[in-house]
């Protein structure tokens, strides 16, 4: 027996298939102390199914590659410890359901990168002083923790169940926009983009994105709702519109 072996076994029901269809295949895996689902997948690749497709890289919950659905919940496989699941019950591992499947546990997430290209990048204001206080940058630093695992995109029902990729950019990109919009020296105006292109009005703030984020980013409360409020400032608050018309003041003052 290997060092760390527990003598226990776990059954993983892993989805095998492609766009033409597939099914769950059961594999029995010996459990070692501290083992995570990705370890079990690697054991299956090494001992039972060398053609099992899985995307992974760091195995440290920092690269965002091994996103999947473990027991129906979007999660990083490298962060899903086997001893956190009920003993004696099989664990299902499936690919993310919001994106088209390539093979087995691998999905095509290229759509996300295409959406990302549409967001106006960081644009410092003219003559901006490149100094700021920590209090100015705290909010943005939270958003910079994103590892682009796309679990929030996967669980978002607007993209997942309603297939509105043609109308909604998804929580990952609202987080990115929040990080840019709230930056103390950024001068670009992304509020019209938020409303008309990113489709922030389609988010009904049910917070699934926050629940699954492996980095613990409070996506809904700290990014999406503040952005919704900025859209309200610009488009839905008549008092502020009149005030801006009279004083020439801009948003965010």
């Amino acid at each position, binding site marked *: 027996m290997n060092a760390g072996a527990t003598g226990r076994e776990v059954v993983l029901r892993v989805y095998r298939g492609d766009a033409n269809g597939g099914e769950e295949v059961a594999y029995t895996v010996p459990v070692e102390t501290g083992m995570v689902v990705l370890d079990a997948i690697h054991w299956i690749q090494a001992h039972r199914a060398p053609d099992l497709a899985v995307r992974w890289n760091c195995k440290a919950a920092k690269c965002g590659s091994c996103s999947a*659905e473990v027991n129906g*919940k979007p999660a990083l496989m490298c962060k899903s410890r086997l001893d956190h699941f009920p003993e004696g019950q099989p664990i299902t591992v499936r690919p993310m359901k919001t994106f088209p499947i390539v093979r087995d546990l691998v999905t095509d997430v290229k759509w996300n990168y295409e959406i990302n290209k549409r967001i106006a990048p960081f644009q410092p204001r003219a003559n901006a002083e490149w100094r700021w206080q920590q209090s100015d940058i705290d909010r943005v630093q939270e958003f910079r923790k994103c590892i682009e695992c796309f679990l929030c995109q996967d669980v978002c029902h607007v993209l997942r169940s309603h297939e509105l990729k043609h109308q909604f950019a998804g929580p990952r990109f609202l987080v990115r926009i929040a990080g840019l919009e709230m930056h103390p020296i950024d001068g670009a105006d992304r509020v019209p983009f938020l409303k008309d292109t990113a489709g922030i009005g389609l988010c009904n703030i049910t917070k699934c994105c926050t629940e699954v984020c492996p980095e613990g980013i409070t996506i809904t409360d700290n990014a999406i709702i*503040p952005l919704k409020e900025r859209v309200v400032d610009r488009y839905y608050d008549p008092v502020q519109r009149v005030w801006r018309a009279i004083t020439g003041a801009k948003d965010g003052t």
Partner: protein
Amino acid sequence: MPVAPQRKLSAASAPTAVGARGVPATGTAPGAWSGAGSRQGFGATERGDAWWFKPVLQAAGLIVLIGYANYAAFLGAAHYRYLENGRDYLSPFYSPYIHPAWLPVWLSPALLILVFPLGFRATCYYYRKAYYRSFFADPIACAVGEPRQAYCGEVKFPFLLQNLHRYFLYAALVFLVILWIDVVKAFIFSAPALAAAAPAVTSALGLHAAREAASGGHYLAIGGGSLAILFSTGMLTLYTLSCHSLRHLVGGKLDCFSCAAAGGPRHKTWSIVTVLNGHHMAWAWWSLFAVCFADFLVRMCSIGVIHDPTLATFRHLLEMPNRSLSLLR
């Protein structure tokens, strides 16, 4: 193994045109890049946990508390105030109490004011999550199939009105001031001998005259109802001050605190509201429960089912003449 054929995403340089009637458009072709999630039927999931429990519990809680609130506001107008044994307890559902002469007898005066707290809660970012999940199943739980394919989020009427939340916040802040006055009144008791006459005088001379006649002297005291009304207003205060819109208005809208006018105090205020906002869900539930509980206690005292206990009296701290107190009344 063959790679799944993909419909193409339109070019990144394609115009980001607004869709029909203000519907946003990302530039992706409709139906492109679809996954298996959209083919899941209602309730379909591989989740093995009790994902249904929280939405059911939420729905039950909202039905019970909102059902009670409706009963109290629209059918229970006969017992909204307790004015006996020196007390002056007003149900929070009826505060501020406005009863114009033109209001038909069969219509509750609560109707005139409840649109504001009702609107505040209906457009609240927390309650939106709760009722979208529990009543619209949109989604009923994370990664669980939904009952409908059609969806327009908050971009069309009536859900477009969610954007008015800050206006209901302004109203709620005004209401808070009035509710705190009610709290003070709930801790100021009338001299028992005179107050005992209040019900009879009320029927003969009306409420205002009864109060004047009854208040020969006043003193600080704590009754069960005083604490219930304090609890209710305290929870409402925490709920209101933890509002997401307030968080935005007091400082969240700024990109640079240190560059803005009064940036330091605004950052401090924003930080405090942010801490409160982290518990917004808890305040939302506690405040709803507390308001119902305060109304229930006032109602039971008024009907005579419950005898409101006097927990403490502080006659030496406040014995004021009628005229001084009339400012509060």
